[in-house]
């Protein structure tokens, strides 16, 4: 019966190797969580920063959950994509972070990674032709314990500003 209201925005991304970025995002919550309102996934516009290296999206997040348990606290998973000058898109990074569990306004920065191509040819192809390895099962971003076996390379950081409002948690003995 407790409620979690998330209001915030995907501010932008910095530290990526490319410009013209956009982001696909989603909120993943456990089975005990019920979406009351808002979209739980979406995609930002493409931002091509002219001045600095930070891409700004300011994409609103406005999701409201009701929950009957703490398990499966919502997680924000992100995919940063790049749209090149030919209009093609390629993946630049996967990342995820937990929604903060304390109420208030939080500035999160979510670091991202991307799978590294196996073999020289793939890397060469990536460099010359674009594209690149992507996860077959993208839910591995937030699930799956053996992610450590992936061979990845670091990508940039996504900045998220998230206001968390909690309600009725105290009623069930959860201090926050």
């Amino acid at each position, binding site marked *: 019966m407790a409620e979690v209201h998330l209001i915030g925005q995907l501010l932008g991304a910095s530290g990526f190797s490319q410009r013209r970025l956009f982001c696909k995002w989603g909120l993943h919550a456990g089975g005990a969580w019920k979406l009351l309102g808002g979209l739980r996934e979406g995609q930002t516009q493409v931002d091509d920063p002219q001045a600095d290296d930070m891409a700004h999206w300011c994409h609103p997040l406005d999701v*409201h959950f009701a929950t*009957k348990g703490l398990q499966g606290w919502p997680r924000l998973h992100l995919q940063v994509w790049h749209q090149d000058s030919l209009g093609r898109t390629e993946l630049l990074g996967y990342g995820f972070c937990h929604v903060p569990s304390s109420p208030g306004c939080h500035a999160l920065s979510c670091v991202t990674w991307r799978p590294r191509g196996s073999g020289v040819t793939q890397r060469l192809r990536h460099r010359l*032709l674009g594209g690149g390895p992507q996860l*077959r099962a993208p839910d591995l971003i937030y699930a*799956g314990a053996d992610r450590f076996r992936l061979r990845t390379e670091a990508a940039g950081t996504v900045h998220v500003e998230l206001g968390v409002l909690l309600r009725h948690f105290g009623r069930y003995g959860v201090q926050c």
Partner: protein
Amino acid sequence: MATAPAAAAPPAPRSLPPVPSTSRMGFSELSVRERMREKLKAARSKAEATLSQEDLGPRPRHLKSIRERKAELRLDKGSGDQLGELQRDESLLSSKIKFSDSVKKLKQKSQAQSDYPSAEEAYNFFTLNFDPEPESIKAGARKRSELNEEEAEEYVETHEEEQEEDETDEDAHLVKDADLFIMGQTDEDFLVTKPAECERYSEQLQKEKEFLFIPSMQTVPTSQKMPENMQPRYLEDEGLYAEERPFVSPSNQNILENRILRQEKGKEWFGDDGRILALPNPIKQSSTRPPVFSLEEGIAPELETIYRKAIRTTAANQYLIGPGDFQGPFQLDIDISGLIFTHHPCFSREHVLAAKLAQLYDQYLARKQKNLTELLTDKLRALRNAVQCSMDSAAASGPTAQQSIPEYKIEIRQTRRLRDAEQEKDRMLLKSIIKVWKQMKSLREFQKFTNTPMKLYLRKEEVDQRSDEKAYEAEIQAEINELQEEYMEEYEKKMEEYKTELQEWKSWKKAQKSKKKKKKDLREEESVEDYDVGEEPVKPVPPKMVDSLEIEQQVREKANNFRRKPGEPALIPELVLSGSITPSEQCPRAEVLRREDVNKRSAFIKVFFNSKEVSRTVTRPLSSDFRVHFGQIFNLQIFNWPESLKLQIYETTGMSSTTLLAEVFIPVPETTVLTGSAPMEEIEFSSNQRVMLDHEGVGSDVSFSFEADGSNQMTLMTSGKVSNSVSWAVGEKGIPLVPPVSQQNTGIPSALKNIDAIASIGTSGLTDMKKLAKWAAETKLDPNDPNNAALMQMIMVASSGEAHVPDFFRLEQLQQEFNFVSDEEFNRSKRFRLLQLRNEEVAEFRNYKQVPLHEREISEKLFQEYEKRLHERDVIDSKHYLDARRAVVANYLQKVRESVINRFLIAKHHFLLSDLVNEEEIPTLGILGLGLFKLAEPKRPLKPRRKERKKVTAQSLSDGDIKLLVNIIRAYDIPVRKPVTSKLQQPSKSSRSFNEMFAASPSAQSPTNNVDWAFDQVLVRPFVEVSFQRTVCRTTTAEGPNPNWNEELEFPFRAPNGDYSTHSLQSVKDEVFINVFDEVLHDVTEDDRDRGSGIHTRIERRWLGCVKIPFTTIYFQARIDGTFKVNIPPVLLGYSKEKNLGIERGYDSVRNLSEGSYITLFITIEPQLIPGESVREKFDTQEDEKLLQAAEKYEAECTSKFPSRQCLTTVIDLSGKTVFITRYIKPLNPPQELLDALPNSSQTTAELVARYVALIPFLPDSVSFAGICDLWCTSDQFLDLLAGDEEEHAVLLCNYFLGMGKKAWLIIGNAIPEGQTAYVLTLEQSQYVIWNPSTGCFYRQYDTFCPLQSVYCLISCDNIWFNIQQWDSPVRISFDISKPKLWKPFFSRSLPYPGLCSVQPEELVYQHSDKAAAVELQGRIEKILKEKIMEWRPRHLTRWNRYCTSTLRNFLPLLEQNQGKDVEDDHQAELQKQLGDYRVSGFPIHMPFSEVRPLVEAVHSTGVHTIDVSNVEFALAVYVHPYPQNVLSTWIYVASLVRNR
């Protein structure tokens, strides 16, 4: 350093005065400026030098050490303060004390002198070059590395005083250094070049040998490794399990062993088998450190990455769904057709035999089909022929043929043996069939009843005895010959053997003899020889020659046994199920019990997918022949490759118990097995349950016998066959819904992954536990081998039957335990529900503004409506519809509507760039120029120009902002009251109409004197009442049949739920009702005496007609301006059309061009709203791509020229597919009934057809479909649904006209009040006629009152023409489509008509109208309406005049027959005649029937019930006329009667 000597030159200031020293410890931190200040102070204190001479005295002895220390400090300052800090710590304490001392001293001194420097000092300060000391000190410091730290305390005091001295000292050192370099020595003097030192390798080795031990790589003999006197022991040889060790290269092992042996107690390291002790397998199964795996193999499937090319995104709405391939759901179709028991506990003995017989018979049939015997016989014959041939040609062909003969012979022998075996089997089978049949027969006789319908016939096939005998004999002869030959061969072989053996024996004998001779000489060999004697070979026996007679006997015996005797007829058994079963009454009690038991039993099958129950069949009773028919197909939608498919067969007995009979594993079908092509398979099952029954049933696992003495017992288990088929479903586009093969491996439990079981039994075996267990048993897996632990455990679990694995699958374990609240409570929350429903945009809550924070603030009522709707969705409520068929249709339409609305809701969330980004166009120079010109234009205030109103976007609106303005200007030809013409009339003063009183009363007695009467009479006093959204406004009362009001009425507009979005406004269903009434004043003054002093009248209003305009039309049109035909009932009692009055006709005939009354209106919305755009949804299509492109191009061309004209080429059909519009036009047959009605007049037939089409109820799309999206039904769909909007009506009418042989087109145009609409154009006798399909009216092209305002397109069955004339009003255009300058065709010479087939049916089939149903409906409507009228008059008594009602009822069929025309006069007269003493006002209403509500509303809107005269009576009659295909024309006649007293 150049300044250093200068500083040293004047020795006088050597003795510097004690300078007040600031704390030196932080010197390194001092900035340059501070240092300068220091200098300044120093300079200032020069003057004090003389005064302080005496202080200097005792100091010098410390001088040297201090100087050293100071240098050290300086060094620190230059090179960093690490050391300085060290020192600082040390000197901190002391320096503090010293500091305070020195300050004291300074104070004493400065008191004696002035604080300020003299002018000279100042000059010196600025001109003197204070050299930067640090450098020089540094240089000095380099040489003095020894430090004396102990005396650090001294330093602070003396530092400044010693500065000068210090410098000179350093200078001396510097000079020395300089001398070193001045000597002019070169590099060679210092450097010596030497070769690189190198030790020889051999020497190195030599040296190393002293230290190093290199163990040899030679294998160490086992004996060395073992303790003395021990044999190595090998565990494997003793049968114990020995772990396989990890591989270590032998050389490494040897090295290690050699090295260990050198050690003390080295042998401890070796085990019993002489190998190094080691753990079984020290290698961990999983590495503690994650391996950097090679990417080529063994990646967990979920970790796999795929290389994807950079791609253009096509659809933006695929958010995080896995990119690329189709992820399912896949579908597996499991068809379970039935169950056959081959044994069942309830089998009677006869059943057992029958089952056996059936089985044998099946076997027989199978064998017969294979026909092996015949095949082998043929082969034998062929081989024999071949041998014969090669024998014949042997001489000619040479050795190769010779060689092949023995091969043939061997072949013949084998074939013969096989054939004999087959023949034997055949014979045995036949015998056993007969035997079982005999058993059965005897059993039946014994038990005196039959249980099974089985009967065996033995058909005899007669054969020609002689030829048969011949063949038989020949066969035997051939066989005998062959056998003889064979035996001969064998004999020869044996003879050979015998000979060689004999030879050997003889030689041995000889040897024996010679040995015997020797024996005497050599005694010692005796023992050996004795040994030999034991092995003395027996003398070989010569083989016998086989007797040919014997052979023959053998062969004949065999033939007798296994073959049909010659001449004996061939027996062909035939099993039929034609026998009759003894009915239960004639059976003994035990048997009856058995049959009852069978009847009680039923079976069902559960389907398990991956060991989870997914579905089950219905429970079907067991039939008496123990078959169960299910015939069910289960479609399993799955996402992964299935691991196992299992059926569980359950049997239920009676009401109570359900027992699991057996489990059957079904193989997962190959990917190529698709539904439709999959064959039925029978899978056998059996159960080891022990069942004992107390009746005739034999039970299961119970031994019984057929013999009387109980011998030859047999035990049968319940068994049977399930016939089923499993296949992959085929998707919509013919794509098989099979999971990708890559998934197949993922389904296998991880424990099994690395075991080679897969290799041995295949992946499918893994899905079957039993198979796996069997495999494990067969391969004798070592159960102790830890490698197999997982497997063994699983097999144990599977075979023990105790499933430890729970049957359910829980995604989040322990969730239940940690829940805050239960699910029910969670779902009960009203607030959450409200929030969710609002989020889902459910119609009732779509724009619900603020959801209360607390639960208690939400009332339960909120959901009532919603729940009611949900509840009623599937319940067909015939109460509202009076007609079950229409209820079904309404229900269907509701569903279509919902699905379309959902679709649009989704589409609404897709935005284009232009929706989000508002880019205003930069004004070009041209526009600017025009603007400038406008400024210069002369102002003409007398010529006002229409200003464009500002359009308002919908978002910023709220309730009360929008007003609907209705300007009622004037009306024409309003019906006028009729003078009361009744001869019987005795107008009493009190009840006469007020108006009539002074106008008509003089003429009342002389009705023929119309002329005089007419001039004075107020014909009618009409006013207009407009109602919109429950707001009612009326105009003032005007007078006369052509009133002029010119009044503006204002209505507030409220959007549903306060949602002013375009989408919501589009779906506003409200209509503007414009009702025309006549105001009648009645004088109710009771007493004539009061007449002089007061007026007491009652106002009564009588409905004359109405106009309805839907709000959506106003919304889309922005304004409606025009003259509309008032919908006036065909008969208005007490009123007549003006033209009937001869006197009026005289001067009004000009305007009376058209029949009916008209009203001129202007309606608009203030402020103007921007109508929404149509939904951009790309629909599926089956049209040719080229055609669609051409259509797009055509539309673009047309709209670029005439942006206001709509060009329609493609429309959306009911299933949401884009269809080319011409496909809708096709000649169709109108109902024959209508054509037969008036066979000679085509004109009236056409009218009749138009009326028929108009009678189909109207249902606007745009209201129900919430967007400007028309869905076009085909004509048969339209007739089925009996509801549609203009397009459907127009298409149907056009098709009918074409079917009647007229030239007809569909007009896409604009009409009032409908807005964008479709009409029909026909060419009749070189004149164009425009038909309004939804009213059935027709207009000539030059008709001024034609509602069609503009024509955009004409559509025929093979082309589209777009109007490219300057005007679009039908009056001003030419309809000649052959002129390409006026009409732009779609299909032209460049794009010929490709011959599109129509979407319409070949022919329309009409149901005959059901007269009885119509009559019944009529009664029900009447009843409902009467109840309603009484309901609307709660305060008055409602009397029904039956006489009048019956009269009216008689009129109505007449009206229907004449289609409401030209009946008025007779009608009126008739009524007057019958109801002479009543004043009757009333009218018939004509409507197409769809449901009751509109009828009720229509009656209500006329306001008949509002009369509150005390003695009023009512009459109401309903007539329903059925037309084919259930089209109903409904007439309602309502009248109010007031008795004239």
